[in-house]
């Protein structure tokens, strides 16, 4: 007779078979049996966070930077509710997470027991699927299924809720079935005709553009390689969403920069004026499209996405290819080579006028800002950070707000999985714990959280985690004492009524670093910035870097309220000449 294992042991047996090496968690009453078994499974390292939301974001950072699912272990009640923000964040940005939560014993469910909550009910809308395991014999198969659901198709978070009595009960353990059953939820149903049609559209187009997103990253590093090959083989311009940064080299001439609300002038105008838009793994989010009725009015639109429900959700497209980016791109390249081997040459002439137009938009230099010798401009800080770190293989996370957009605009990414930011949900407090997760996955690499002082305070307690595990993350705070993006909107759209966007009693971040037993560095002038950044980079311990920046700098360019792509507000120079009032808010 085969050996009997307790539910708690089975949790870890499953993780071993799923090649889990790190879990992020926080113990509590309803998961004590699982924590009791932890020491018997040496291949699985537990990272103790300081708040369950931190566990969730750390697991997200781990997953995004490694391509493996992030695993979370939390207790019932508040443990589970605290992780909801991170699950929702992962759901919006399609990040594979497996969350194991404890639950009160089965006979107490529904009695309002201590630390009981309807965890599967609460997390139903923010997970791909969730399970309450009421029978020990279902436990192993449920956990294996959970990993499968999280990682196949469009990835996302799942949750397995395990009552405490189930953790004690014993049963046999079954290893996962080898065959990858996809339950019909993973889609690679495109056929050669669609690929041929795509190539036909590409060869006819004289104003094409690739618009790429997080789907390319999620499809794995190979997808980014294929994307580069396709972009070089066609000579087309390419722009990327916030989540797609890194899938194509940020310093390449064919790259127009990020598009959308704070995207570049050339990217947004090219999106508006193109005659062929090839969307690869992006989802026509409202921050991308601007006013939907006037979104790219003259173009044929192609949408490549693994999730059929993304097709025609916000924007109607002319050709939909439902499939994994990697598979679709490799078919496209194969057909392109067979049918149009001289595509690049024949196409160069056709798109030469288009490129001229793009160069004209480029010459506007929409990311320029007015420099200063007295105060550190936030854009300057990012530029210097990039220049001083670009030779290292660095990983960047961010919080949410102005600093996030400046990082996206001024830090150039050349590889996928190097850029971790909360896009869909826009979760302030994401970056610090995400950096913890990234550093756990890549102990030797440079990991920087580009932060705002308001965001970082939401999860600052995770500095303690970083110190405990000797994770030398660098928290680079662009400190302007305001919730900068809120302040910017209030200035531009709410008549400068700066309602509650100023933080009057900020902590001294250098002293705070000392309190956490890590290193605090402050930079006040542009003059000392480089030296201070170098000091930070030479410190092999966690650092909180308090970069005192211009308090009232705004993030430009910007597509204002409900405007289409070709009506952007450019930087301060443009404003001075146009006085942004009423209709003058728009440029074109």
């Amino acid at each position, binding site marked *: 007779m085969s050996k009997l294992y307790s539910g708690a042991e089975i949790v870890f047996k499953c993780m071993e078979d799923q090649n889990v090496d790190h879990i992020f968690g926080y113990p509590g009453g309803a998961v004590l049996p699982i924590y009791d078994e932890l020491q018997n499974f040496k291949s699985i390292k537990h990272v103790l966070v300081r708040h369950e939301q931190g566990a969730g974001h750390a697991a997200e950072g781990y997953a995004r930077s490694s391509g493996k699912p992030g695993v979370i272990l939390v207790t019932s009640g508040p443990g589970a509710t605290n992780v909801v923000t991170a699950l929702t964040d992962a759901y919006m940005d399609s990040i594979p997470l497996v969350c194991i939560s404890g639950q009160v014993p089965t006979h107490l469910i529904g009695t309002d027991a201590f630390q009981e909550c309807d965890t599967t*009910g609460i997390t*139903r809308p923010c997970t791909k699927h969730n399970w309450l395991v009421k029978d020990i014999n279902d436990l192993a198969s449920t956990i294996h299924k959970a990993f499968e659901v999280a990682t196949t198709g469009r990835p996302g978070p799942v949750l397995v809720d395990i009552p405490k009595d189930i953790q004690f009960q014993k049963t046999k353990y079954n290893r996962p079935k080898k065959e990858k059953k996809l339950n019909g939820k993973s889609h690679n149903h495109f056929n050669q005709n669609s690929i041929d049609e795509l190539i036909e559209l590409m060869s006819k187009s004289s104003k094409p553009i690739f618009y790429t997103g997080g789907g390319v990253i999620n499809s794995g590093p190979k997808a980014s390689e294929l994307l580069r090959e396709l972009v070089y083989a066609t000579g087309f311009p390419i722009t990327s969403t916030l989540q797609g940064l890194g899938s194509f080299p940020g310093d390449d001439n064919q790259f127009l920069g990020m598009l959308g609300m704070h995207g570049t002038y050339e990217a947004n105008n090219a999106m508006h004026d193109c005659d062929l838009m090839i969307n690869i793994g992006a989802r026509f989010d409202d921050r991308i499209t601007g006013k*939907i009725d006037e979104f790219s009015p003259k173009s044929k639109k192609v949408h490549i996405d693994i999730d059929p429900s993304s*097709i025609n959700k916000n924007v109607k497209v002319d050709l939909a290819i439902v499939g994994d980016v990697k598979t679709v791109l490799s078919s496209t390249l194969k057909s392109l080579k067979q049918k149009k081997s001289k595509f690049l040459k024949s196409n160069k002439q056709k798109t030469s006028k288009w490129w001229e137009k793009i160069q004209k938009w480029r010459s506007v230099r929409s990311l320029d800002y007015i420099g200063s010798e007295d105060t550190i401009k936030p854009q300057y800080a990012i530029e210097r950070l990039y220049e001083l770190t670009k030779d290292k293989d660095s990983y960047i996370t961010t919080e949410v707000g102005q600093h996030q957009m400046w990082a996206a605009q001024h830090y150039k990414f050349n590889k996928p999985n190097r850029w971790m930011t909360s896009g869909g949900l826009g979760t302030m407090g994401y970056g610090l714990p995400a950096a913890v997760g990234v550093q756990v996955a890549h102990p030797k690499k440079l990991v920087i959280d580009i932060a705002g002082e308001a965001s970082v305070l939401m999860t600052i307690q995770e500095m303690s985690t970083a110190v405990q595990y000797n994770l030398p993350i660098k928290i680079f705070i662009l400190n302007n004492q305001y919730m900068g993006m809120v302040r910017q909107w209030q200035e531009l759209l709410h008549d400068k009524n700066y309602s509650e966007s100023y933080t009057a009693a900020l902590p001294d971040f250098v002293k705070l670093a000392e309190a956490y037993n890590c290193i605090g560095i402050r930079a006040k002038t542009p003059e000392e910035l480089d030296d201070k950044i170098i000091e930070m980079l030479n410190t092999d311990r966690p650092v909180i870097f308090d970069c005192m920046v211009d308090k009232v700098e705004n993030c430009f360019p910007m597509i*204002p*309220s*409900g405007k289409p792509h070709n009506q952007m507000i450019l930087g301060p120079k443009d404003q001075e000449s146009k006085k942004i009032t009423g209709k003058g808010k728009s440029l074109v």
Partner: protein
Amino acid sequence: MPNSKSAYSFSNKKEKFDTHIIVVWVDNEAGVLARVVGLFSGRGYNIESLAVAQVDEKLKISRITIVTTGTPQVVNQIKLQLRKLVPVHKVADFKREDKAVIFKEMALFKIVGPNNKLESALKACKKYNPVLLDKTKKSNVIQITALRREIDKMSKDLKKFGLVSVSRTGAVAMTRGAEIFK
């Protein structure tokens, strides 16, 4: 909304709403109805009526029939979003006008009154296969099967004969002929 200050755009377009009957085959497991219904409420879709029961005891499959209204784009999203749910096996969609499909609802009417009124009530139901489920000196319980609007009409018409209580199901659907839902 003339001067929206938010970056979210406001849509002024008025699109035509169609009534659709969506049929969903799901694993009959805990919480499955909540998943389906939660998807509708969470994404702001309408549910006009809902009927659900297990139809295959061995495979533990339930069939959910939902009557909904929406623009073509919304109805398409409903179908695609439903198909993403893990316990969902297949989804079928019909327009209410579809002649190839039978839609039926059932209603129970309780009539209380003198004998002549009870008889008039039963007579009024004649077109809709009335079944007299319960009869006392003072009351009747009548079952009819009909379309939604027919039952709406009967619930109004029977008032004068002493209708005191109505209980009705959501619509269920079945294709005509030898065809089955794909």
